[in-house]
């Protein structure tokens, strides 16, 4: 499988090693930073988004005197 690189084997393998190391480093660094920034932005935006309004049932509205459909003189 491995080609016979002869007397220059060390030089050729060193060149391929350096290249793969360099390309691997920039790819990994880019992916790691991309993931970290994306998660940070998602967390920030989740913090900013208002919570959905709580659903008030008719019972809760009648008991506490709040909520839609409540009339001070009772329902009718």
């Amino acid at each position, binding site marked *: 499988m491995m080609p*016979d690189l002869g007397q220059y084997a060390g*030089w050729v393998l*060193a*060149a391929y090693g350096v*290249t793969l190391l360099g390309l691997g480093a920039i790819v990994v660094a880019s*992916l790691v930073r991309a993931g970290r920034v994306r998660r940070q*932005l998602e967390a*920030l935006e989740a913090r900013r988004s208002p919570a959905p309004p709580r659903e008030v049932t008719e019972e809760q509205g009648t008991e506490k005197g709040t909520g839609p459909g409540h009339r001070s003189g009772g329902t009718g």
Partner: protein
Amino acid sequence: MSMWEYANPRQFMALTDRVLPWVTALTVGALAVGLAWGFFFTPDDYKQGSTVKIIFLHVPAALMAINAWAMMLVASLVWLIRRHHVSVLAARAAGPVGLTFTAIALATGAIWGQPMWGTWWAWDPRLTSFLILFIFYLGYVALWAAIDDPDTAADLTSVLCIMGSVFAFLSRYAVNFWSQGLHQGASMSVRREDNIHDVFFYPLVLCMAAFVLLFVMLVLLRTRTEIRARRIQALMARERMA
């Protein structure tokens, strides 16, 4: 649809969402096939022996070192003239990628030069202008990190990019201006008779295409990250003011 619509960050993010997976797949395929073809399936050169296989790393890396700077130059000019943030963020994203390609070109060149020329380095016009280009890349990346205000950083790095373009140009054409020097002329030409042999030419073209795709993939990914980082800064500034 005009190209300028992608100066809008949302449009850019929407487009790259669709495009990036395809570019990534093409990059992985081209790199794997190109490097494997060059390493495993090309013969030794009659003069250079197996060191000729370094051509499949050195030439594409050198090509991209210069082309990355050219892309940064265009993006910087768009920023200076039209003040499109996506453009300057793309230039910022490309800086470290171009720096990596330049370092690989210098390192593989030195590794190739030692057994062939008997020296790791020579103050040859092409090598010297390449080293200066490497220093400009370092300066560009450092300047972005050193300045807090993003628009000021964008302005100053854009000017630096214009100045460094002289050396990017010289790196490519130095052999035409100065006849002395150790580094050979171009390995490829539009004239077929000036090209290297086909057995090396085709895998070399594939490796060059693979490096171009890798550059595009990384710049798209990193520009998306820069846009998100800018949004984080804006949101945090808003929180501090509230």
